[in-house]
């Protein structure tokens, strides 16, 4: 690798050296506690799939370029350079990690491999080796933010076509639109995904609760978060933030998408509005008696997969369980569960990138966990997890039903006559 590129990569690396990163890169004792935390390693036991194995790639580059050891005794830490196999290893490390952060809970120091992989992703962008599909999807999201006014009419028309399906689940409150868009001073701005399935059930639930809500023009998903491009990530989030400010909403509610929720809730700065996930909203509606669920709509035993970004990394842990409690009495927990749940294997952009073979093989431990629960239905509250679980169900012929929690709730809505 030529000196100019090396210098460029060093400068990129340096931009990531914040307080946390310096601690992460200096402190690992290679105790091996994190090894068993990773679902990829548990399914495909190779050193390169351990959290420490991944982080060591970056640590070895760090030592090589930023530490005295790299200059005087590189053999001590087995340092590597950008030029030889460094970038290949960085790619393999970064995009075999789903960023689930299960290892953070295993490490005695709480070293965050997802953060360390952020360096790998930035370096890959520095040599144009980022996954092109994720880059393209990120750019498309940004472009949509720039042209949404022009395409607004088409969007409204498309949304109108979904109204009958929403009405079939719950009646529209009097004097309101079934799927309102651009409602000034709405209480809630709901941000869905680019698919009717992410809008219809949520709309029905909010209508059943007689919520003063409005639908966002934008999809919640943030491809740049998986790409590791902080600037683009901020731009994608900003579209929604700007919309929320323009409409003067009190709360932004994010569709079943763990990453989108985490990015908007914790990584997009402080706002005058609150950010919650749809699961938290449903839980609140049930607690306040604003929606009622018909028991017995589910046939068979249900289990729940905690999405990593929503539970361990977002704090939405007990809310889905309370919602499920209102849906069915026939519920069984996965083991482990909550913050210790195994990642489904679809995070970190792997679903968007395809990578089916890797995703299926690396989630073997997830499949074993699900099978052990002996449930008939598995539900989750994240689009990525839902897609991955659906594919796992087919690939491993598990014979289960895979459901989204919002969908289950929407199908069980009842009590409109009493409330109306």
């Amino acid at each position, binding site marked *: 690798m030529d000196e100019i590129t090396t210098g460029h990569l060093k400068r990129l690396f340096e931009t990531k*050296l*914040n*307080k*946390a*990163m*310096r*601690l*992460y890169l*200096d*402190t*690992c*004792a*290679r*105790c*091996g*506690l994190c*090894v*068993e935390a990773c679902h990829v390693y548990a399914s495909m*036991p190779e*050193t390169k799939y*351990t959290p*420490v*194995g991944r982080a*060591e790639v970056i640590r070895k580059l760090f030592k090589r370029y930023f*530490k*005295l*050891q790299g200059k005087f005794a590189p*053999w*001590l*830490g*087995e340092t590597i350079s950008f030029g030889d196999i460094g970038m290949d290893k960085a790619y393999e490390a970064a995009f075999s990690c789903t960023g689930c*952060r299960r290892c*953070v*809970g*295993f*490490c*005695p*120091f*709480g*070293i*965050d491999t997802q*953060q360390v992989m952020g360096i790998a992703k930035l370096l890959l962008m520095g040599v144009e080796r980022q996954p092109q599909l994720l880059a393209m999807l990120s750019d498309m999201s940004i472009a949509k933010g720039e042209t949404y006014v022009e395409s607004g009419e088409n969007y409204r028309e498309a949304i109108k076509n979904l109204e009958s399906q929403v009405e079939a689940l719950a009646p529209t409150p009097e004097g309101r639109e079934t799927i309102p868009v651009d409602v000034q001073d709405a209480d809630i701005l709901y941000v869905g995904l680019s698919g009717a399935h992410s809008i219809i059930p949520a709309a029905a639930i909010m209508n059943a609760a007689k919520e003063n809500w409005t639908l966002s023009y934008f999809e919640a998903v943030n491809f740049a978060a998986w790409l590791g491009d*902080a600037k683009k990530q901020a731009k994608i989030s900003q579209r929604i933030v700007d919309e929320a400010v323009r409409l003067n909403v009190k709360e932004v509610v994010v569709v079943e998408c763990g990453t989108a929720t985490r990015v908007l809730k*914790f*990584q997009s700065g402080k706002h005058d509005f609150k950010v919650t996930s749809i699961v938290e909203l449903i839980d609140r509606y049930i607690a306040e008696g604003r929606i009622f669920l018909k028991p017995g709509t589910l046939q068979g035993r249900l289990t729940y997969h905690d999405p990593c970004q929503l*539970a*361990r*990394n*977002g*704090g939405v*842990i007990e809310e889905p369980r309370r919602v499920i409690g209102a849906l069915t009495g026939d519920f069984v927990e996965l083991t482990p569960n*909550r*913050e210790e749940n195994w990642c489904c294997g679809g995070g970190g952009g792997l679903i968007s990138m395809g990578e089916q073979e890797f995703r299926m093989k690396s989630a073997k431990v997830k499949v074993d966990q699900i099978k052990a629960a002996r449930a008939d239905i598995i539900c989750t509250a994240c689009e990525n997890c839902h897609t991955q679980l659906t594919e796992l169900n087919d690939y491993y012929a598990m014979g289960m039903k895979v459901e989204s929690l919002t969908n289950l709730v929407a199908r069980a809505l009842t009590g409109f006559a009493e409330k109306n």
Partner: protein
Amino acid sequence: MAPTGFTLFLDGLYYFIMVPLVYISITVMVVGIAVKIASILSSPPPAYSLKTFPARKRPALAALGDTFGMSMIRKRKPVFWFFLMWFHLGIAFLILGHLDLFPSINIMPAASRHMVGAGFVGVSVTVPAFYFLFRRFVGENRHISVPADYLLLLLLLFIFLLGDMISWGNSWTAHGFVMTKANFSSYFGILSSFTFMNPRTVLYGSHYHFIVLHVFLAELFMMILPFSKIVHTFFSLPLNMLRRR
């Protein structure tokens, strides 16, 4: 008999290790740690919270628990946790035992033949250190280890073993203890009072060579500490705060 050239060289070397190098190594360690802490403090903070959930009501307390109780290890690797706790407690007593050698501190009476722990503290760090070394050769630990991991453990082991030997060696002669706590206190007195006297005048046992080697390896350890993973001594708590706050 007048000292020969080699004996003079050895005496000079021993003196350098036992006095000036002690100051040099402590300075390197303190400055190295200070520079490291300063470089971390001067770096920008992370752009957003890195905490994990469920959130703790008292994050600082939880971080203290993570750091000193290591519950995540106790839960998953109880044997490893047992040795880690044993080792770290041993280190705490080891530091205490060495501090006790300063003439102004007397946890053990000044006239005592023994240091704190009477040799058991040394064993308390040696046994776990052997466990840590053997553990490095097993399973995935072998693949994730780098040469520095082995060398650091070997360095610690040699320091501990030499310390053990000094403790035990004291009782190997027919006359009982050759060097007592009082002798070591005199040496620490020379160091703390900056008299630059030759320690050989107060450490007159036949195993002085082992003491020199023990001190030299300890100096080596102090000098590499700021540049090694041993910095976790200082950074474990702030790291655990990151995931709790």
